[in-house]
């Protein structure tokens, strides 16, 4: 073997573990998945035939899927707003000269360490037991029943729980970005007489554009993919009505895909939903990132 061949082999050996895992577990299943979504495949590996766009035609008339799609969009939009507003405000507070800011920062991150299923169950207990008992003792009728069994409030509670969990993480990104702004710029503005509010809107926010791009991307993809909290908190319930049919009022897309494929064993349709899910998520992320990038300025 020539030395050149030997070098090629070495390079290849370094990449081999990653390459194998990556191609076998992500790329091939992903491509197969797209192919399966055009067949009547039932997951058993038996002979399948090509059905064209039939699966897609069926899922776009499926009230449950369309409803999941819409509430996932709603959930994502609300979540992106609440998580980022809360995280940004907190990040301003914990980067001020306030006492104990490091302790606060560490504490605010704690919800992120807890698994989705664990915090989902804990919040489920809080919403279905603690809040009603407080509501009853105070005589507040709005709180006396669980907010999770009411189809009008269930999405709001999901957004609340997700904001509670995720704001601490996004806060860290904003904090890192605020700390990266050079002190001299802010001091110069202060000397020039810029008030606190002006310094934030005219200097800090424009200089933090990169952090906004990242944070919005993370919240957007995270909300869109939401699964474990959904399962533990509501498992899709309660029942609501959509297009004249009963649907699961809080069943987000990920849970809907899971139910179709593995509960109802409808693999091909589940996979078609997954393809739509992927395409929509990709389009949204690209739009969001390119829009935000166009707003970024160089410091």
């Amino acid at each position: 073997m020539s030395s050149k061949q030997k070098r090629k082999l070495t390079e290849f050996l370094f990449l081999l573990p990653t390459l194998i895992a990556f191609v076998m577990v992500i790329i091939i299943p992903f491509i197969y998945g797209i192919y399966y979504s055009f067949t009547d495949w039932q997951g058993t590996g038996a002979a399948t035939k090509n059905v064209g766009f039939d699966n897609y035609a069926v899922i776009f008339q499926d009230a449950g899927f369309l409803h999941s799609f819409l509430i996932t969009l709603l959930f994502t939009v609300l979540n992106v707003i609440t998580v980022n507003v809360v995280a940004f405000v907190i990040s301003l507070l914990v980067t001020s000269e306030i006492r104990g800011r490091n302790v606060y920062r560490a504490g605010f991150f704690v919800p992120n360490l807890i698994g989705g299923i664990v915090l989902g169950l804990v919040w489920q207990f809080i919403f279905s037991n603690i809040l009603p008992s407080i509501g009853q003792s105070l005589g507040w009728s709005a709180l006396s029943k669980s907010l999770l069994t009411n189809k009008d409030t269930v999405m709001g509670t999901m957004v609340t729980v997700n904001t509670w969990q995720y704001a601490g993480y996004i806060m860290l990104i904003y904090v890192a970005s605020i700390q990266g702004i050079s002190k001299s710029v802010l001091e110069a503005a202060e000397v020039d007489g810029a008030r606190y509010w002006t310094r934030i809107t005219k200097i800090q926010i424009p200089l933090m554009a990169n952090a906004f791009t990242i944070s919005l991307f993370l919240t957007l993809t995270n909300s869109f993919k939401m699964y474990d909290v959904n399962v533990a908190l509501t498992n899709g319930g309660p029942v609501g009505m959509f297009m004249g049919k009963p649907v699961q009022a809080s069943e987000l897309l990920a849970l809907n895909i899971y139910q179709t494929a593995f509960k109802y064993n409808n693999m091909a349709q589940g996979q078609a939903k997954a393809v739509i899910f992927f395409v929509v998520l990709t389009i949204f992320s690209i739009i969001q990132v390119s829009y935000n990038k166009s707003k970024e300025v160089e410091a």
Partner: protein
Amino acid sequence: MSASRAKVNQADIPVAQQHRFKWTDVLVQLGLILWAAICLFPVYWMFTFSLKNNEEIFGANVMGLPQNWLWQNYSRALNVGNMGQYFLNSLIVTITSILFVLIAAIMATYAMTRLQWKGRKRMNSFFMLGLTIPIHAAIVPLYTTLSRAGMLNSYWALIIPYSAFSLSMGILISIGFMGDIPYDLDEAAFLDGCGVWGIFFRVIAPLMLPAVSTVGIYTFLQCWNELMFATVFISKEAYKTLPVGIQGLSGQYTTEWGPIGAALAMATIPTLIVYIFLSKQIQESFIAGAVKG
């Protein structure tokens, strides 16, 4: 030093303004305390109700500390709820996945940043695709593949997908750290007669320790709490991880909440212990992953 600077600054501020500043400080403190209470209350509540009986949980003492500390809730969760088994399974799956991710990611990073060959940039972008493909888009075909290979209900059914889906982030973080290692070291080692493998194992790998902790922590949190793969690929008790086990428990023991609380607490304690010792690194690993992504 910063204290003395703060003093000078305060002296510069007119008296009236100083007063106003204190008021805002009080408000800010109150806001922060309130948010901290909201963040930590569910955690506090989880630990207290894990030590209570149903009577206390559902009425007599909803929010206070337990009146009788029922440690047997924990032993019940371990023995009756099979939590010991789930805990061990989670530990095996998580640690093996972390090892795989670390070895593969650091090797691949080395090949893509230190070795000169055509197409290494393209290879890197290819690996970054993994960040954009959600597990939902691959889970159905992956399930049939594992099923055909007879690998459902085994540790490998989780270790392989977990490792693969954590690799992209592992590589992303490793590239940042490897860029900080000076190239002079590679050259010096080369002149001393080290080959590519020698440079990797004797020079680069030991200097990648900070990356090891960052990537390791990131992978740990991903695997420890993962639910979707685990529910789909595992149905046998013997291989269930904590999230799946807990999901089953909550359906099974609807009559007794104390042991469920104990199970939730047990799943959370390892992460909290790691956080107490490595909170700086954990926060940094999340920022590193995000900012470089």
